[in-house]
């Protein structure tokens, strides 16, 4: 194969906001020199919260310092603490376990569905005990968790449901947006996310007015927003900056187009990769309900070889979660003794993610797909 006439395609695009460079500079200048000298949790943040809630028909949206912090605030608002258990997926990002431990509670790891790669409702149900307070499934890569099953399970067993939709903004399932299936959901705005921004931030989504009010209080040191320096609850500093709120308000108009471009690239990959299943490379299906297009992940027994092959052809891939959460040194002490999570372990061995962002060119996308297909010509048939 001849070397591609294309420079290296990064996994994390450094040019996500290139078109909005002047907008960002203008916003920083306007906020810095503005007459109101309001930098945190001001009118811009309030406007962003209203716009985000309206976009998905949610009762409220409460902006905070990150998706991780959103989970922490929700857990605190639900009074989850010592002695409580929270059922989380065995495969996913560290905050799923860390925020639970931070709250003083214990994460209980449920194995995942081998196809969706999200928490298996049956596995979760088998782990419910009298101490279980919350189920916390998470959407993963480009696939929503089985939220109808989790909603039914939570209602039937009388536990709360936190929907970790940190990376799923733009997804819907049965017409219901990601983030609106749980008692509370959230989005992360860290730059790589579908509504990413040039900084850290997140938002809590809920229809529960009391929960929203508690989160508002907890995000700003337990103050009620009326009287400064009176602290009703032990709160956090998890606030949202006005610069980022103004930038997100500006970028909201282009969100649909960027989501559509992501979906287009994702669909193209899936069309190209569908025939590779018989050669041992499993790609997500083209489209379908409950999909969003954050990270495009395929499964292969030859993960490290594919990674090297891509790198040799100018494509940087990334392996998210090379080990399951209960196998992370930080969380092993909290894992159920003797527990096994075969599907999570298999996913951790086999996942590899390809570049997926709106500013990829068609030529880059084709090159990436060609490179993956060429790999299976060599490594195929060994499934």
């Amino acid at each position: 194969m001849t070397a591609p006439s294309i420079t290296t395609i990064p996994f994390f695009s450094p040019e996500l906001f290139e078109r909005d460079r002047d907008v960002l500079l203008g916003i920083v200048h306007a906020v810095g020199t503005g007459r109101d000298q309001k930098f945190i949790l001001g009118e811009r943040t309030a406007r962003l919260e209203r716009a985000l809630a309206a976009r998905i028909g949610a009762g409220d949206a409460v902006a905070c310092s990150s998706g991780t912090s959103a989970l922490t605030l929700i857990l605190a608002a639900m009074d989850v603490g010592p002695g409580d258990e929270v059922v989380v997926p065995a495969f996913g990002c560290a905050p799923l376990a860390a925020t639970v431990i931070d709250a003083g509670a214990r994460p209980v790891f449920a194995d995942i569905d081998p196809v969706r790669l999200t928490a298996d409702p049956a596995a979760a149900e088998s782990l419910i005990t009298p101490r279980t307070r919350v189920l916390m499934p998470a959407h993963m890569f480009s696939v929503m968790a089985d939220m109808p099953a989790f909603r039914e399970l939570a209602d039937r067993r009388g536990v709360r449901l936190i929907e970790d939709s940190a990376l799923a903004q733009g997804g819907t399932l049965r017409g219901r947006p990601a983030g609106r299936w749980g008692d509370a959901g959230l989005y992360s705005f860290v730059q790589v996310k579908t509504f990413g921004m040039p900084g850290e931030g997140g938002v809590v989504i809920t229809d529960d007015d009391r929960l929203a009010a508690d989160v508002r209080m907890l995000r700003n040191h337990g103050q009620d927003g009326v009287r400064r320096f009176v602290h009703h609850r032990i709160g956090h500093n998890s606030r949202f900056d006005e610069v980022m709120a103004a930038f997100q308000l500006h970028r909201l108009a282009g969100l649909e187009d960027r989501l559509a471009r992501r979906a287009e690239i994702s669909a193209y990959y899936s069309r190209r990769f569908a025939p590779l299943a018989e050669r041992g490379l499993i790609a997500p299906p083209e489209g379908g309900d409950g999909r969003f297009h954050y990270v495009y992940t395929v499964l292969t027994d030859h993960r490290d070889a594919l990674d090297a092959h891509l790198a040799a052809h100018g494509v940087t891939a990334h392996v998210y979660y090379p080990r399951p959460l209960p196998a992370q040194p930080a969380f092993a002490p909290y894992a159920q003794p003797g527990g096994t999570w075969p599907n999570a372990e298999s996913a951790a061995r086999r996942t590899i993610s390809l570049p997926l962002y709106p500013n990829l060119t068609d030529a880059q996308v084709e090159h990436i797909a060609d490179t993956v297909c060429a790999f299976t010509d060599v490594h195929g048939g060994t499934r």
Partner: protein
Amino acid sequence: MQKTPSATHSPGAPVPIPFFDQAASFQDHWEGIRKHLDDVLDNGKFSHGAKVAELEDRLADWTGARHVVAVNSGTDALILLLRAAGLEPGDEVIVPAHSFIATASSVVLAGGIPVFADIEEHGHGLDPRAADAAVTARTRMIMPVHLFDRMADLRGLGAVARRHGLTVVEDSAEAIGMRMDGVHAGLHGAGGVLSFFPAKTLGGIGDGGAVLTGDESVAETVRMLCHHGRGGRTLDNFPGISNPTVVPGRNSKMDDVQAAVLQAKLTTLDADIGRRAELAERYDARLRGVPGVRDVPGSLPPRRGSNRVSYVHLLQVEDRDALAAHLAAQGIETEIYYPIPLHLQPCFAHLGHRPGDFPHAEAACAAALAVPLYPDLPDEHVDRVCDELERFYTGRPR
């Protein structure tokens, strides 16, 4: 140096004097800020990136700290520092009864129990004798706070810590520029913090903070904790997000946009501190001896071996709430640091304290009023604040 105020106002009304305004100096810094922002956009990593790494180096130079870890707020800096310095669940930490809430809430959020002790009669610092009396078998740490414009009695508190084998962790969130015996605040024990809340002596354009420490293992742990407990290099290294998770951590990463603004502002920090000192002296010269003004900050000399940095100009006044209302009616904003001492905050009601437990903290809260003080504040605004203050107490300006 004086700057021209940026605010406009309706004709006839007195010119409003905001409690804080940095619009003019932000404009002065704009070329520098823009250059740093262009770097951030060129680099393409917008939190925990190259500009944050650069800021850490600049702050290490400026403070003399061996290690600086930039994070998303002073509060998170305290939580991470407490954990990195070895706080275990159930450990007690002695804190002053008079401070911002984060001094005590950070202890709770780090898994510990805050134990309050009274402050000195003058100067708002944790009283070493009161701290000594608060030590129990479960006490692990002592957290002096350097409030407003001066450092706490680190000599006295250090002696208490040595006597009982306690770790000293400094809440130096307000104390950039303060030094004792040539050593910057935050570097006298296991570590300290900085807050870059916009109104701070070094303020960003949003929330931000840092941990300062001379202890490499404390710094390493804070670095892991602020990035989800991940080991290995994550700063300015995107693929590090898949490094093994070594300890349960948080997301306390600083935005590079904040680092850009802070780096530009750091270039004038010495001059800004000088301007703050001029303004503080101007206030005190006018207000000393005015009936109703019980105390001005300058009446108490800085602690031996240390300097004074006027972050907040906090007066002790009679009839405080009426004075604040009078000033507000004249368009002059003030702040009360703090209306309720920590032991009487609703969130600590479960600790069972009552009014009278810490009389110095309670007295300080009852009479405290902070007047506007920031480098962009023109001299004549100080004079107007003083005129109005005097008019309130005497019925006429001096």
